[in-house]
């Protein structure tokens, strides 16, 4: 039941031709009630997918690098480390970083824990950046309903970090 427009035929006012990711052309009534692909266009999906992929890849590399250095440092400090190397006080003596500020200071010190947490922060950022990119794309397409929706989500996310810092 997938509808295809005749090749090259403009469908009229208010419609647009999209190239789906499989390369087939489709026409979709803008803002109408007919089912679409579930996202505004294949292009938004490509952008969002790109943000996710690069963010995930970058965070993976940073975490892997940081963890490798951390393991080396742990075994350099004591030849047969036990569980106390893993846990923070009171069970052990491992370090815990609690904010981006502490991560920045840790990086300057050359603390591998900071590198690991930096990677985690990048990972944490991927869904947020994704929503932000969606917001911008909806704005470009003048889809105001979804600009409002994504702006609301970003506001809640911002508030959550403030609550976290205060709590």
């Amino acid at each position, binding site marked *: 039941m997938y509808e295809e427009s005749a090749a090259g035929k403009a469908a009229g006012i208010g419609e647009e031709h999209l190239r789906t990711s499989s390369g087939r052309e489709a026409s979709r009534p803008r803002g109408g009630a007919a089912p679409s692909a*579930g996202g505004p266009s294949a292009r938004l999906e490509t952008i969002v*997918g790109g943000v996710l992929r690069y963010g*995930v890849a970058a965070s993976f590399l940073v975490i892997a690098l940081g963890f490798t250095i951390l393991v080396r440092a742990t075994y350099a400090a004591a030849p047969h480390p036990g569980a106390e190397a*893993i*846990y923070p006080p009171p069970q052990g003596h491992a370090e815990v*970083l609690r904010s981006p500020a502490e991560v920045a200071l840790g990086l300057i010190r050359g603390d591998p824990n900071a590198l690991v947490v930096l990677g985690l922060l990048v990972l944490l950022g991927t869904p947020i950046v994704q929503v932000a990119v969606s917001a911008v794309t909806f704005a470009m397409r003048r889809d105001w309903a979804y600009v409002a929706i994504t702006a609301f989500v970003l506001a809640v*996310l911002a508030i959550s970090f403030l609550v976290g810092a205060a709590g």
Partner: protein
Amino acid sequence: MDPIAFSLVTLVAAVLAGMLGSLLGLGGGIIVIPVLTLLLGIDIHYAIGASIISVIATSSAAAAAYVRNQMTNLRIGLFLVTATTLGAVTGATVGGLVGGRALYIIFAGVLGYSATMMFRRRHADLSESVPNHPWSERLRLAGEYPDASLGRRVRYNVAGVPLALGLMYVAGVVSGLLGIGSGALKVPAMDLAMRLPIKVSSATSNFMIGVTAAASAGVYLARGDIVPFIVAPVALGVLLGATLGARAMSRLHGLLIRQLFILVLLVVSLEMALKGLGVSLY
């Protein structure tokens, strides 16, 4: 325990959690927490911290593949996360006020109910043609997706939008409280309330889980529950597993996914009930 042995066990478990999580639309936290606490004897607070990160990892890694495969309904996902993020902030803030044991029992009940409902619908492979809810018309939520196992594009409508919003708020609260993705609540909500095809529910849930978890992760970081040595192998393993699992998604038949999901729901439900009743496995 030897740190390297710990890392290897955690890494392998995390890969499995990531694969299972991305296939079922869960965050993987449901597997990570028991493995870390039961198998490796880690304090549950650190396990929850690692879990919230694994939830984001599963979601982002799998969502990257799903969005390309056009399974994820971005509009539904974005619309529903307004409710889940509010719930997550509420849940993480309320935090220690609600008795944990009561929550486990409630959660166990909800999971058991969801498993039962999904079991009843197990033969409905495609959602029967459902009328679009008026909100779905207004917000253009309906869509279609390519099903590789059926060899064609499947069109679907969206029902029960207000109910789904309410359920998503609850899922968000649970996510903030327990540090899990609550995919086990989100997927049934989309499957049963909105009557979406199971693959769309799973893929969209993956997307939503990450955004929701990000809303509570900041709280856990500030509390000091994110321990680098524990979280690093979890994050790495889950990223790998979720990427691999997402590739397999469109080839699996919808029925198999649903059966796997019901099984996971039942196991976790039992686990949660035991914990809530004070039979401490952790």
